[in-house]
């Protein structure tokens, strides 16, 4: 029998018929479908035992309590802790996305590394920790031996008061370099304002929760100002579902219709940088009406009425100054705010039961202006809102133990006598601790960098400083840069050596007094997961580094590790007594609680307290508002000073000109408004550019978790370009339409962005978001949009010397 074509067909037909009555086609179809349901390249998250670990978010100075959900050893979700006094369960978007900063290999350094590529290329090679310590310690020792310890510098992004910053500062002291530089933040403005007006070197404490009228001068209440978890929680309380029950009202003073401005009960839009004039205008209305708190002014303030100094010179007081210069009509010319608005606002402020005027500039990441703060604080003093419930409170600093004294060797002593490169604390900058812009400037000016080795801790100044790229240029000139960043940020990419820190979820760290909180608070975060890469807590690294340098430097660090230092400092909390280490939701920390005689602190020994502090991550002293007036103000007059005698003294030592104060005589020592100076030609640069911050985009050292980009509208970022918000009228003037690509040119540079027509933008001002334009990090963040800091041309703020970053002259050129 031959297999003919016909037979073949018969076989095939039989086969086809037969296969139908077998499971093959049916099961195959089913299984292939199941295969599509379980594609091997779709991840299947392994399951296991669930657990929750409590910690504190350290991504910003907000100090929210977080609870991290874990599956076996993996962290899978971050949530806010309802049993935490600061944030009461909520958390900001950056903190919510924190796991993307932990589990992202291309964002992080996986171990100590040495640069192999060009600077800025981000090409590194793994080395061992021992090698890394050898390199850095050798370099520092060599500089010390050659008698140049001041050529070592440190830039520290840790907040003042934290254990990490204390250790880094101590290292610089031990090594013998005065060049320990911090990044300016809003807290510095607060600190200085409190020094000159109240004589208190303490953080600002606004009793927002107990206030019924919050007049916010520029605070991005909903953009991340203060402790975002706390402020937004308060926001929720203020806006009860039933408007009839709504007790607190919020007025936002800001030039742009930000979220805060839009969501506030009233939005007042003065021109940028004229907040001081507006505050003084309100003071004028209140003084003229005679309805200011005369009792408070008389008893607790200095310099309100005209006065005579001991040398017999007559001085005009705050009242005279304000009545003369800040009538609503005068202020209206400066600010653009209608006089009747000021009159009504002043009346509303005065009539409220517990009003408070608060000062800020967006988030906390950037500094404010001293005289603006003074103007706002003067308004509080005028209405007697200082040291009163719902006003500005004056709590004592946190009683942490100082680090023990240590002996410096001769090299260190000699080195510390050298002048600071940034001239902080000199006659020109009497109240300023450090000035990174001057630091960069000094390096850029000299032909050879006076700094040989720069260490950068928890900071990304190459990106975050509003200095038109000055620091980046300086960085390129410094022969050796060491970064301790866990992330591949712009500054770390310029570094020669990387000693990576752990991320905030892998290490112990402390959080000292979240910005603006009205009660003393100390938070302690602990490792939620074991370090997933070969990284070390920066505190441990510093201690180990000091030991590697040896000699007197090593002996200044007698501790085993970072935890010992934290514990030693926390002992002070125990010794001071009165704090709590657990939180009861029923008794919010901001609610005035009269401590009863029998109140127990909740722990019986320091070890017990430490254990509870570690577990709960919190120590706080509930609000006590009964501060005694005597000795409250530590100014020369012992009172709140409308007229700051400290500034007066500073002017005596140097001159108003040296301090860059535009006005002369008495006004220079009081809150005042002066037209900002700019070297840029107004006709060449007819517009001004103001960077703005958002809560859903990290603009500081911490990279944005990629999740956040889901929340950004495509009128802020589209593919690779970010947008500049411009009022439609301004855009029309230059023939620009929505989405047009423009070059924003300032005297120091140019960036390209698209135009977003936004009615809420003040005419003639270009608003650019901060946080875009990274060249570091990974594909999620790299090359997206532009960084407005790169074109900021900032003058120095009077007295403080901080950059006036909100007033850059620019022009728009259509591309």
């Amino acid at each position, binding site marked *: 029998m031959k297999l003919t074509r016909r037979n073949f067909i*018969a*076989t095939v037909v039989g086969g086809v018929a*037969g296969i139908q009555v077998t*499971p093959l086609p049916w099961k195959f179809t089913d299984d292939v479908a199941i*295969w599509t349901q*379980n594609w091997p390249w779709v991840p299947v*998250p392994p399951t296991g035992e669930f657990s929750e670990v409590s910690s504190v978010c350290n991504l910003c100075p907000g100090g929210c309590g977080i609870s991290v959900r874990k599956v076996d050893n993996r962290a899978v979700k971050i949530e806010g802790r309802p049993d935490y006094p600061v944030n009461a369960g909520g958390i900001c978007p950056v903190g919510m996305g924190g796991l993307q900063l932990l589990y992202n290999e291309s964002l992080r350094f996986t171990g100590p590394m040495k640069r192999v590529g060009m600077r800025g290329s981000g090409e590194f090679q793994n080395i061992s920790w021992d090698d890394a310590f050898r390199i850095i310690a050798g370099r520092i020792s060599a500089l010390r031996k050659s008698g140049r310890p001041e050529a070592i510098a440190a830039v520290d992004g840790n907040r003042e008061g934290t254990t990490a910053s204390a250790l880094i500062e101590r290292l610089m002291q031990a090594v013998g370099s005065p060049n320990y530089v911090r990044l300016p933040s809003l807290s510095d403005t607060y600190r200085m304002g409190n020094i000159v007006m109240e004589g208190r070197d303490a953080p600002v404490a606004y009793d927002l929760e107990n206030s019924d009228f919050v007049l916010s001068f520029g605070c991005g209440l909903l953009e991340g100002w203060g402790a975002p978890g706390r402020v937004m929680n308060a926001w929720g309380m203020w806006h009860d579902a039933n408007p009839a029950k709504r007790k607190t009202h919020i007025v936002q003073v800001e030039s742009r219709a930000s979220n805060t401005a839009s969501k506030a009960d009233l939005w007042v839009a003065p021109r940028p940088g004229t907040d001081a004039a507006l505050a003084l205008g309100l003071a004028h209305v209140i003084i003229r009406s005679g309805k200011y708190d005369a009792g408070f002014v008389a008893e607790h303030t200095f310099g309100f009425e005209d006065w005579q100094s001991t040398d017999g010179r007559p001085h005009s007081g705050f009242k005279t100054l304000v009545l003369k210069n800040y009538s609503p009509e005068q202020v209206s010319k400066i600010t653009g705010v209608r006089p009747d608005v000021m009159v009504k606002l002043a009346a509303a402020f005065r009539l409220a039961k517990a009003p408070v005027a608060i000062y800020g500039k967006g988030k906390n990441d950037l500094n404010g202006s001293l005289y603006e703060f003074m103007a706002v604080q003067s308004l509080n003093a005028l209405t007697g809102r200082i040291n009163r419930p719902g006003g500005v409170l004056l709590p004592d600093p946190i009683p942490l133990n100082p680090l023990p004294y240590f002996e410096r060797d001769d090299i260190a002593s000699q080195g510390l006598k050298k002048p600071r490169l940034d001239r902080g604390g000199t006659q020109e900058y009497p109240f300023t601790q450090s000035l990174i812009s001057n630091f960069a400037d000094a390096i850029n000016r000299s032909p050879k960098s006076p700094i040989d080795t720069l260490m950068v801790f928890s900071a990304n100044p190459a990106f975050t400083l509003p200095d038109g790229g000055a620091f980046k240029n300086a960085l390129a000139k410094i022969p050796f840069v060491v970064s301790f960043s866990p992330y591949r940020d712009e500054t770390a990419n310029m570094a020669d050596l990387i000693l990576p820190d752990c991320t905030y979820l892998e290490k112990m760290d402390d959080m000292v007094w979240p910005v603006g909180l009205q009660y003393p608070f100390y938070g302690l975060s602990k490792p939620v997961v074991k370090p997933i890469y070969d990284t070390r807590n920066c505190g441990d690294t510093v201690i180990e580094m000091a030991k590697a340098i040896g000699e007197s430097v090593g002996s200044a660090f007698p501790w085993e590790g970072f935890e010992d230092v934290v514990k030693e400092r926390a002992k002070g909390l125990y010794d001071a007594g009165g704090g709590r280490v657990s939180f009861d939701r029923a008794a919010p920390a901001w609610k005035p609680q009269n401590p009863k005689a029998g109140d127990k602190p909740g722990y019986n020994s320091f070890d017990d307290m430490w254990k509870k502090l570690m577990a709960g991550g919190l120590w706080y002293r509930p609000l006590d508002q009964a501060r005694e007036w005597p000795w409250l103000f530590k100014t020369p007059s012992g009172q709140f000073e409308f007229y700051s005698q400290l500034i007066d003294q500073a002017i005596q030592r140097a001159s108003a000109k040296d301090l860059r104060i535009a006005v002369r005589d008495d006004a220079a020592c009081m809150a005042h408004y002066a037209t900002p100076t700019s070297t840029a030609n107004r006709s060449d640069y007819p517009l001004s550019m103001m960077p703005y911050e958002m809560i859903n985009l990290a603009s500081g050292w911490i990279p944005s978790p990629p999740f956040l980009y889901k929340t950004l509208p495509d009128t802020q970022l589209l593919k690779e370009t970010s947008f500049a918000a411009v009022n439609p009228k301004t855009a029309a003037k230059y023939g620009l339409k929505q989405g047009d690509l423009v070059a924003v040119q300032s005297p120091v540079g140019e960036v390209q962005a698209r135009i977003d027509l936004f009615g809420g933008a003040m005419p003639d001002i270009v608003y650019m978001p901060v946080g875009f334009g990274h060249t570091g990090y990974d594909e999620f963040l790299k090359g997206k949009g532009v960084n407005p800091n790169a074109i900021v041309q900032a003058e120095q703020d009077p007295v403080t010397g901080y950059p006036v970053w909100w007033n850059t002259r620019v022009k728009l050129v259509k591309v």
Partner: protein
Amino acid sequence: MKNRANSSKRPSQSGDASPPAGFFPKWLNINVAIQDVGFFLVGLIAALVVGWIIFPAVLYSKQAQPINFNHALHLNPDKVDGIEGEKKEEKCSFCHEFREDGTFAGIPRLAKCTECHEDPGSPLGETPEEKDLMTRYVATDQQIPWLVYSKQPDCVYFSHIAHVNMGKIACDTCHGDFAGNEKLPLYLENRLTGYSINIWGKRISGFYWNKKPSDRMKMDDCAECHTQMGQEQNNACFVCHK
């Protein structure tokens, strides 16, 4: 339109002995027909063999468990006395335990084993399996890569506690009785789906006259049981899918 069909050129099949005329229709060549049927049957049988025997053999790969765990030994109170519990369910959940949050641990982790098999140096018995456990896993603190017979796809959320605690269903109802097993059954993995044969059921046809719950673990089986038990509301999608 077929009026021009020309049969003249048509080469007919090899002309063997002709069948009696008239019995079959004229156009039907009986020899050819027999041949056709023969080849048809060849194809048919070949297909049946492929579909019923070769296909299942190829579809499933045999995989060995890392250790041959002896359930019978562990559940024999004369030999192992650590397993607590009165009823069989309690004994099962001694190792296959529920956690406090109601989740089910399933196949125990190494930590459960080391509750008894603590010290790699001093085994509790003399079996080679235990020695294996000690040297390969306990000493190195490695999890044992067990193959899970009843592992469902990732999209499935199965709540053991709902069935065991609330539904009072015995473990062996669905899993079969493992208590007497001295050897772990052979693990057959579907090469396409990656799942154990226990999900589809041991019978490739998928048909059972008297289906026991432990025979198959497909969604329809869950739904069928829910319906039988009067728990029809639990057939809603989001009860068992995640």
